[in-house]
């Protein structure tokens, strides 16, 4: 059989760390990067007698995410204990949700390349994170950092609706963008605030039943997920082609080697002995609260793209780029509204602003040029007070100094000269220095106008307003 004779079937489990200031069941800080075990207390250290108390903010963020993914919020959901022993799991169980999750039955529309497709979301449930085992810190010993223990997570479980690694990639990118827009998470795979486990199986094309699946873990980027899926699909296909059976197991992706290996811990054989968490009552959400959460959902990427395309008359490519990140879109819209020039704003934001952010690796928080500042610069250009070349120089000085555009233009003598007497002086000099071109131009050879304007610009050190120079030249030629 050819490669096309088999079809990949993928379902994804995405763990997302919620952006709360305190942990899911205690008041400890969720700050990333604190010294080991600083953000701990009797509750998240699982000291004898300590009890969990649910963080309402975590429920709010989880509910917002679930609603935005089209899920139904269950008015009653139950926390359950997932029991297993591991040194970075202080209680010996993780508080999670099992047979009655926070939300279920949603879907996510993705661009599948050949059109849009809806990927089913089975469920969204809340749980707490474990700590971290550090195996490389002390030789021959394992160190435990419990700062992360108890940080709130949601797990978003998809249906096995994806048929290629590209679709899985599109699902993840769309999901990340939505979660970003919702401001519920930092959704950074590098910092571990978004983690993906993939369930993948292969089946002969046209077959209805699902093949035996394997679970692939340990991917640390979206492209890693795509590569891992392609690798695992190829492995399963080869097994099926040999007439053998795929065995259900967990594999760990090794990005450096580009291969997935069977995990030594037998994940599939775990019996987590779930049972309802007796320290927490059922989570009951009333209708008024749910409608409050619904009302607070911000504009999502799809709606925003549509609106921005209509409002600013930009190309689809520009819209795509400007809406990649909600902060970028906010920055753009603010600039466009303040400057009244959507096209120029788009060019600036996609050009100089993006380049500045990329170069500093920083966020908008650290960018000293605020939308109002950029809008002022754009106006200086459109009013003819500053040339494009000067504007770029002004922008980089704005980034450096944080000073307003007009002040920099003045201090650096970058304002264009539109004063007729000064311009006439330069024109006189140019015409006398280039008598042959002057004579031909004045005799009607209009194509020399550009050359003469160039001479004037050079003479003025770039400060002459080219529009006015054009007009003055034309009036001398009697065409004014």
């Amino acid at each position, binding site marked *: 059989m050819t490669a096309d004779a088999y079809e990949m079937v993928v379902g994804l489990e995405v763990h997302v760390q919620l952006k709360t200031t305190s942990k899911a069941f205690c008041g400890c800080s969720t700050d990333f990067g604190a010294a080991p075990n600083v953000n701990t207390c*009797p509750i998240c*250290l*699982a*000291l*004898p*007698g*300590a*009890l*969990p*108390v*649910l963080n309402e903010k975590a429920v709010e963020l989880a509910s917002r995410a679930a609603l935005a993914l089209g899920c139904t919020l269950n008015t009653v959901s139950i926390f359950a*204990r997932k*029991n297993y*022993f591991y*040194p970075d799991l*202080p*209680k*010996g*169980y993780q508080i999670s949700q099992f047979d009655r999750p926070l939300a279920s039955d949603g879907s996510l529309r993705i661009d599948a390349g050949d059109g849009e497709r809806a990927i089913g979301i089975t469920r969204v449930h809340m749980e707490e994170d474990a700590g971290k085992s550090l195996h490389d810190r002390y030789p021959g010993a394992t160190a*435990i950092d419990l700062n992360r223990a108890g940080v709130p997570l949601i797990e978003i479980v998809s249906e096995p609706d994806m048929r290629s690694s590209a679709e899985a990639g599109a699902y993840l990118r769309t999901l990340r963008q939505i979660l970003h827009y919702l401001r519920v998470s930092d959704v950074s795979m590098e910092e571990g605030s978004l983690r993906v486990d993939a369930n993948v199986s292969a089946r002969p094309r046209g077959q209805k039943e699902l093949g035996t699946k394997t679970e692939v873990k340990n991917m640390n980027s979206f492209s890693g997920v795509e590569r891992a899926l392609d690798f695992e699909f190829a492995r399963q296909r080869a097994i099926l082609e040999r007439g053998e059976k795929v065995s259900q197991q967990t594999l760990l992706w090794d990005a450096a080697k580009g291969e997935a290996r069977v995990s030594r811990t037998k994940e599939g054989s775990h*019996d987590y*002995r*779930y*049972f309802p968490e*007796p*320290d*927490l*009552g059922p989570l009951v959400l009333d209708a008024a609260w749910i409608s409050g959460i619904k009302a607070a959902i911000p504009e999502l990427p799809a709606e925003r793209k549509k609106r921005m395309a209509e409002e600013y008359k930009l190309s689809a490519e520009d819209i795509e780029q400007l809406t990649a990140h909600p902060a970028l879109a906010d920055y753009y819209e603010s600039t466009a509204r303040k400057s009244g020039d959507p096209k120029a704003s788009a060019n600036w934001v996609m050009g100089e602003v993006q380049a500045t952010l990329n170069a500093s690796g920083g966020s908008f928080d650290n960018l000293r040029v605020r939308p109002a500042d950029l809008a002022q610069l754009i106006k200086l250009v459109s009013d003819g007070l500053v040339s494009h070349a000067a504007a770029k120089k002004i922008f980089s000085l704005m980034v450096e100094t944080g000073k307003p555009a007009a002040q920099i233009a003045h201090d650096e003598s970058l304002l264009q000269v539109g004063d007729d007497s000064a311009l006439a002086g330069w024109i006189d000099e140019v015409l006398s220095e280039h008598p042959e071109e002057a004579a031909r131009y004045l005799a009607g050879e209009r194509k020399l106008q550009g050359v003469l304007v160039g001479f004037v610009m050079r003479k003025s050190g770039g400060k002459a307003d080219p529009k006015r120079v054009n007009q003055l030249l034309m009036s001398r030629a009697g065409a004014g």
Partner: protein
Amino acid sequence: MNTADYAALSAVSLAARVGEGDLAPLDAVEASFARAAEAGAGADAMNLILWSDRDLAKRDAAGLARGMGIAGSGGRLAGVPIAVKDNIATLGLPTTCASKILAGYVSPYESTAITRLREEGAIVVAKTNMDEFAMGSSTENSAYGPARNPHDVRRVTGGSSGGSAGAVAAGITPLALGSETGGSVRQPAAFCGIVGVKPTYGRVSRYGLVAFASSLDQIGPMARNVDDAALATEIIAGMDPKDSTSSSVRVGSYRDQFLSLATSPAPLDGVTIGVPEEYFPENLDTDIRRLCERAIDAFKSLGAKVVDVSLPHTPLAIPVYYIVAPAEASSNLARFDGVRYGFRASGASTLRDLYAMTRSEGFGPEVTRRILLGTYVLSAGYYDAYYKKAQAVRALITRDFHQVFGQKVDALFTPTTPSPAFPIGAVTDPYEMYLSDIFTVTANLAGVPAISLPIGRSTGLPVGGQIMAGHFQEATMFRVAYALEAALGAEAHQ
């Protein structure tokens, strides 16, 4: 103050004397330690107390005296020495649950119940012996040896709060805290001839109570009379934001209610007391039956209406309890893994060995048995047949109580235990031991409040009677108990 005078003082009168400046907190503490020394001395050592620190208690007493000098008042328990079961977190003294696995462990934070008692002037003088992790009915399952009953040192105190019960009975403290999961306050209270309270589930914060079975556990006071027990309950009861299962139902003034009826000739007028047939089986100890009948006669003479009722699912309580409680325990005790605190076995070379060796060496046989039992009933393939079914039956047991209390019955009266205190070492079969809680586990499963108080003696040994009431009806429970106590008078100890 001599120890005999001290041992005769109730918590209420001791606090009153301290409040009036008639007794220094320091003298009360010294008397308590002197009494403890008497109980602990010689071949008859009762082994009631695991940890105490005289200097710490004296410092607390001095602090209280200073505070009273400034504030004028020392609180409703000013200067009252209290003993605390070793599974309730206290600052300054170890909290080991009488287990090797927590040897030397001192909690860096304090339980809400203790904080509330301290705010009223109580002074913690001792952490008391118990069955390891509260698993047992005799205080023989202690890593530190069995506690002995002050009424007969060859016999058990009952358990699991045996050390607290014995400390109160022996006059070491007028008040103690125990904890209940299936009768662990009421049963030792009955065996030691004192009063023991199991409040409504959710009435007292569990924050700082080392969990055995979270859906059943409740801290309860132990005292020599109903008034002291009611006062302590009032103080420790109430919503605690640190315990999500604690209730916001208002805490009544239990004492005001029964004290206002103290001079009434018929203090139980209008009260209907149900006598459930399932608690009086044919083979019930004849003395216990006789003493219960005497108490029922007393209820009638106090103006109460007594009716026969049925709680038909009672026979299922022990099997249900021994599925639900071990299931939750198997999870609650997972944190004792040798990684962060407490005992860690030496010589482990793998993570698996670290867990297996630490837990095998750290836990005693009864705790191990229940962890295994609980792990089994939660396992895939058995969950539905055991845990899920047990929860369904538990709902039926709870419904029994709702139905009885819905039918104009205000309180139930039963024996607390099927027998008086048995000799140390006499009960070796675990199941036979489990049956000593047969009359008490139902209140835990249903979550209703219950109290045990002395109703007489059988061959010189104390016998307890139990009063149960509807959810959050502690006021009714205490009213009935107080009236019975007053009616029986000295007969309660005869």
